[in-house]
C-alpha cells in the first residue's frame, strides 16, 4: 500500500467514524455539543491563524456575530431558510467587514491590533443590542426551521453539515499555512523588517490573512446560528472573543487540528463548569491562562514547538 492510498484510507475511516459511527453511538445532546464545538473551532482557527503572525485579537467575535447576524437578517427580512444560502451570506458578511476594517487594522500590531479589534467588536455589540428594531435587541433573532437543499435540517443533518464544512475549511487553512503567504505571516512574526527587505509587502500579507481569519469566524457564526436556532448580541461580546483566544492559546498555533480538539474539550468542560458555578467560569479561565503564561517553558509560543517538527509539513 502506498503512502497516498494509506492516507486516503485513513481519511475515509475518520470520515466514516465522524459522520456515521459517532451519531450511532452517542446520544443526541453530545452530537449537538460536537456540532457547536466544531462550528466554534473555525472561529478559533481564525484567531490561531492571526497568532501565527503574532497578531493577537481580542475582538474576533465581531466576525462570528457578523456571520451569524447576516444569516439572521436574511431569515428575518427575506424569509430565507436555506442553510447553504445563509452560510454563503455569512461568508460574504465576514469578508466584507474584514476587508473594510482590515484597511485600518492591518497597519497595527500588538496593543493597537488587539484593542482596535476589541473596540470594533464592542461597537457591533452595542449596535446589535440597542438597534432593537433592526436586530431584535436582547430578544435576538430566531432561525426557525432551516432547510438543507430543500430538506428539513435535522440535528443530525446539521452535525454532518458542520463536520463537512469544518473539515473543508480546516483543510483549506492548512493549505494556507504551508503556502508562501502562510510562511510570510510566520516571517512577519519573526522579523517584519526582513520581509520588507525581501521585497514583500507586510501590510498586504497581514491584510489578506485578516480577511481569511474574519471569513473563518463568520462561517463559524453562520453555523452556530443554524445549529442553535437562535442568535443574540452576546455573540459579539468581548467574553466570546476571550474564549476564542483562550482556546487558541491552549491548543497552540502549531497545527490546524488543535483548535478543533481544543474547542471540543472546551465545550464539554464549559458545559459542566458553567452549570456548576456561573460566577467562577471566567475566573477559572483567567487562572488557567495565568498558569499557561507562567509555567509553560519558553512561554505561550512554545506551544508551536511542542508539536513534532517535521519541516516538510
Amino acid at each position, binding site marked *: 500500500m502506498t503512502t497516498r492510498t494509506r492516507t486516503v484510507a485513513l481519511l475515509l475511516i475518520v470520515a466514516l467514524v465522524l459522520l456515521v459511527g459517532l451519531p450511532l453511538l452517542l446520544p443526541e445532546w453530545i452530537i449537538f455539543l460536537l456540532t457547536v464545538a466544531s462550528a466554534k473551532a473555525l472561529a478559533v482557527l481564525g484567531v490561531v491563524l492571526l497568532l501565527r503572525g*503574532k497578531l*493577537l485579537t*481580542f475582538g474576533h467575535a465581531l466576525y462570528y456575530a457578523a456571520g451569524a447576524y447576516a444569516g439572521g437578517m436574511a431569515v428575518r427580512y427575506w424569509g430565507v431558510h436555506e442553510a447553504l444560502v445563509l452560510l454563503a451570506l455569512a461568508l460574504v458578511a465576514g469578508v466584507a467587514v474584514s476587508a473594510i476594517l482590515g484597511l*485600518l487594522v492591518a*497597519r*497595527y500590531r*500588538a*496593543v*493597537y491590533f*488587539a*484593542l*482596535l479589534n*476589541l*473596540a*470594533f467588536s*464592542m*461597537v457591533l455589540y*452595542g*449596535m446589535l443590542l*440597542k*438597534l432593537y428594531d433592526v436586530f431584535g435587541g436582547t430578544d435576538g433573532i430566531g432561525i426557525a426551521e432551516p432547510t438543507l437543499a430543500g430538506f428539513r435540517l435535522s440535528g443530525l443533518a446539521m452535525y454532518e453539515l458542520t463536520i463537512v464544512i469544518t473539515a473543508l475549511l480546516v483543510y483549506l487553512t492548512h493549505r494556507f499555512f504551508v503556502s508562501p503567504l502562510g510562511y510570510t505571516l510566520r516571517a512577519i512574526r519573526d522579523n517584519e*523588517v526582513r520581509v520588507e527587505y525581501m521585497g514583500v509587502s507586510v501590510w498586504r500579507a497581514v491584510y489578506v490573512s485578516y480577511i481569511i481569519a474574519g471569513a473563518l469566524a463568520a462561517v463559524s457564526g453562520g453555523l452556530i446560528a443554524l445549529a442553535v436556532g437562535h442568535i443574540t448580541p452576546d455573540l459579539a*461580546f*468581548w467574553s466570546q472573543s*476571550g474564549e476564542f*483566544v483562550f482556546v487558541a*492559546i491552549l491548543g497552540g498555533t502549531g497545527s490546524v487540528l488543535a483548535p478543533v480538539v481544543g474547542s471540543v474539550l472546551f465545550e464539554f468542560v464549559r458545559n459542566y463548569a458553567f452549570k456548576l458555578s456561573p*460566577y*467562577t*467560569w*471566567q*475566573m477559572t*479561565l*483567567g*487562572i488557567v*491562562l*495565568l498558569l499557561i*503564561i*507562567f509555567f509553560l517553558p519558553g*512561554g*505561550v*509560543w512554545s506551544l508551536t514547538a511542542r508539536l513534532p517538527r517535521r519541516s516538510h509539513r
Partner: protein
Amino acid sequence: MRLLLVVGLDGLTYASWLFLVSAGLTFTYGVLRVLNLAHGNLYALGAYLGATLVLHYAATGSTPALTYALLLIAALVIGAVVGPLIERFFLRRVYSRDEEVQLLLTFSISLILEDVVKLVWGVTPIFADLPYTYLGRVRLGGVNYAWYPFLLAAIALAIGGLLWLVVTRTRLGKILTSVISDREVSLTLGINVPRVYTLAFTAGAVLAALGGALTAPMFSLVPGVGADVLVTSFAVIAIGGLGSIGGAALGSLLVGMARSFAVYKFPELDLFVIYLIMALVLLFRPQGFFGEIEVRRI
C-alpha cells in the same frame, strides 16, 4: 446661543468624564509600556466599593457631605491594594516578554476580577446616588443641570493639572520622565526602576478606581461596566496618543464636544461617534496626536 451653551456644557461634562476614566490607562502605558486590560475592572471595583460605602453610610443617616470622602477612600483603597498586587506578583514577571504575553496577562487578571465583582456584589444593580442628588441642581441658560457633573469636571481639571505638575515640576516627575524615555539609562543612573513601575501602576490603578468611584453616583452599577470603560478609554487615548496625558485631555475634549454636537443632531450616533473619530484620527495619524512611532534600529 442657547444651543451652544447646552451642547458645550454637555460636551464639557462628558469630556471630563472621559478624561477621568482614561487618564490612568494612558499614564500606566506611558511609564510601563503596558496597556492594562484590567483597567475597566479597577474602575468597576472603585465604583462598587464606593457605592457600597456610600449606601452603608447613608443608611446611618449622617450628613451626606462626607460621602464624597468615602468615594475618594474607596478609590484609594482599591488602587493601593489591587494595584501593587497586580504589578508585583504578576505583571513584573512578564516585562521581558512579548507585548502579546503582557496583554494576555492583564487579560487574565481582567477575567479574574470580572468574576470577583460578581462574587462579592452579585449581579443585581446597585445605585448609590446620594452624592449626586445631594448637590442639587442649577438653572443655566434656561436649562436644568445637576451640579454633580460640574464637580466631576472640576476634579478632572484638578487631576490633569496635578499630573502635569508632578511630571514637569517635581523630582518624582523627572524620575518618571527618565524611566519613560530610557529604562536602561535610568537603571544606570541609580533609579529604582522596579519601584517606579509599581508606583506608576498603582497611580494608574488609583486613577481608574477614582474614575469609577466618582461616576458611581450617576448610574446604576451592573457587572460589565468595566468592559465599556476599557474600550472607551482606549479609544480616547488612541486618539490622543498612547502614553500622553495631554493627548488624553485633547482626545477627551475632542470626543466630548463632537459627541455632544453629533448626538444633538443624530441621537443614534451616540455609540459610534467616539470610534468614528478614533478611526479617522488613526487613518491619518496612526500614532494619535501626541503619540510616537517607534522605528526599529537595524
